[in-house]
């Protein structure tokens, strides 16, 4: 159940008051709520529909130079007092800090983000099933089976702190995922993610995934080695996600663990590569402020191949003597590195179509999507993972054979430093904690180190 603006702001403000009464002099209360309807389908039929509500209140409180943090999903007065007490106990058990984190000052007006679509926020299980049915209908004639899920709903966030800041935002969410599998074992994938499901094209999404799975009847083997590759948007987005926290977070630059340490001001990528983090774009999905309550803002990370900037939260900004860019994190969800990271990145598109990118490859790979990508060496940006849901061999500019899922081991920096072309098919893609807006790319540097069986 969404609380709505008045109740959510009242909750975080009351949490601050109760905690202040308990002796805290540094307080941040963050409420995060989500109402999601999830309908799963498998073998062309709806399998299950659920409704999910997850409200959580996080409280971080400082007592002198010690910090404690706790969370709850019960919001009555007794529970708030108990929560405040827990932060006091946890702070007493923590070590003294040399400096306390900063608090965001009150903001008169947060940036505007168009993010509320009532039809998507309030979509019923029946309406979700109708969208799925339209997609499944597209594949009725063939032998390729479809499975996936459709999510509709809304999320909201409220922040208050002991400096007097109070902020609230709500947005609708829609995700429609189609995976396909052919009798040959060939697979396909297509996904829509956005604030509104109003304009979603179920037959079109299904067709993309269906066609890919049915391209070939058998798999062809591939010798490990270095290959030119076309990465479709979902694959590009995952590489960019890892670069977002391994390369563009300020903490890694301050402690020199970033894979782009010392690179600010340097030409690292080709001149036609520009990347920004832009949470406020209409076609992005983000909130106007971060969990610390700082307004989010656009940061130019790479400009015509030169690394220009990194993203900050309040802590790194204080250390670096600059202002936060609104890239603080939720208290939970630490991902391999600490500190802020770029999670709403935009890779500037060019003019080539996906087909044109493929036509420019003499011998190489077409990759739909990556899976379970993890850093092997964070300081150099080396990642390993698997391809999935459609990996193909390109020969003489055409898709020539279906490949099994391949293990790759690449440096995210090298892969993007060796971009040959950028496509025009700008697509919002999400996985883990990112929401990156990216096109397909063609890179010279994709190293295959194994395959599945």
């Amino acid at each position, binding site marked *: 159940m969404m609380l709505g603006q008045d109740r959510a702001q009242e909750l975080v403000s009351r949490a601050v008051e109760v905690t202040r009464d308990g002796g805290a002099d540094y307080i941040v209360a963050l409420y995060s709520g989500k109402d999601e309807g999830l309908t799963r389908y498998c073998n062309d039929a709806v399998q299950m529909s659920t409704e999910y509500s997850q409200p959580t209140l996080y409280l971080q409180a400082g007592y002198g130079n010690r910090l404690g943090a706790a969370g709850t999903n019960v919001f009555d007065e007794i529970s708030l007092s108990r929560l405040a007490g827990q932060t006091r106990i946890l702070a007493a058990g923590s070590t003294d800090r040399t400096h306390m984190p900063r608090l965001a000052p009150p903001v008169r007006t947060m940036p505007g983000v168009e993010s509320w679509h009532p039809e998507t926020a309030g979509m019923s299980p029946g309406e979700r099933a109708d969208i799925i049915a339209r997609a499944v209908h597209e594949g009725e004639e063939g032998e390729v089976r479809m499975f996936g899920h459709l999510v509709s709903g809304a999320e909201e966030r409220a922040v208050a702190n002991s400096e007097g800041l109070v902020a609230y935002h709500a947005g609708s969410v829609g995700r429609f995922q189609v995976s396909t599998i052919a009798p040959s074992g060939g697979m396909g994938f297509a996904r829509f993610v956005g604030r509104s499901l109003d304009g979603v094209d179920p037959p079109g999404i299904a067709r993309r995934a269906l066609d890919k799975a049915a391209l070939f009847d058998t798999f062809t083997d591939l010798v490990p080695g270095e290959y030119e590759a076309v990465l479709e948007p979902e694959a590009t987005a995952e590489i960019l996600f890892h670069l977002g926290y391994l390369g563009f977070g300020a903490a890694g630059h301050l402690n020199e663990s970033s894979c782009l340490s010392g690179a600010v001001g340097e030409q690292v990528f080709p001149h036609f590569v520009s990347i920004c983090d832009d949470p406020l774009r209409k076609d992005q999905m983000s909130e106007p402020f971060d969990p610390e309550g700082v307004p989010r803002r656009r940061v130019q990370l790479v400009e015509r191949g030169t690394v220009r900037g990194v993203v900050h939260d309040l802590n790194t900004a204080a250390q670096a003597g600059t202002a936060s860019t609104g890239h603080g994190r939720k208290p939970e969800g630490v991902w391999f590195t600490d500190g802020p990271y770029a999670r709403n990145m935009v890779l500037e598109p060019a003019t080539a179509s996906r087909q044109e990118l493929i036509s420019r490859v003499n011998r190489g790979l077409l990759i739909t999507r990556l*899976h379970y990508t993890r850093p092997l*060496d964070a300081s150099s940006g080396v990642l390993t993972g*698997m391809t999935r849901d459609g990996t193909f061999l390109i020969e003489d500019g055409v898709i020539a054979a279906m490949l099994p899922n391949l293990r790759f081991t690449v440096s995210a920096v090298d892969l993007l430093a060796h971009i040959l072309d950028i496509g025009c098919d700008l697509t919002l893609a999400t996985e883990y904690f990112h929401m990156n807006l990216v096109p397909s790319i063609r890179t010279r540097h994709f190293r295959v180190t194994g395959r599945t069986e």
Partner: protein
Amino acid sequence: MPEPAQGSGGHARCDTWARPPIVRMTNINLEPGSGSLDDLIADTRRGYLFEGERSWSIDDRRLNFAIGAQAGREIVDGRPGRLLKNPGYTGITPRVWGSCDAVTGPEERGVWGLTGCGKGAPMQNLHVGHAVSPARFRGLKVGVSS
């Protein structure tokens, strides 16, 4: 092929009340063998010693995996040697387990775990814990880098 167990083994897991339970093997344990880790190293003419984990990746059929370790050492003539940079190993799951030729004893056994093992779509995260002793695998592919 082993006979499937009769009935549920009680391994349905979900990360919240509102997500559909899926089959999760959150507490797979390895029965101990015998001997110490020092004995195992002494019994290894040429190999590598991997300690801890810092990165893990596996394909969607749970076959091809790659693990990055916190630390790695060469083993030469039964003795630990040089410290290795960015140690890691990779393989195909059943083949690697089929190559296991030694498991150390209960005195070396510990419970290791992760707080965020993800499965399913949409993703569900669970804590996992595994009681194991150091073990030796023959013919493991090591040292893959970019």
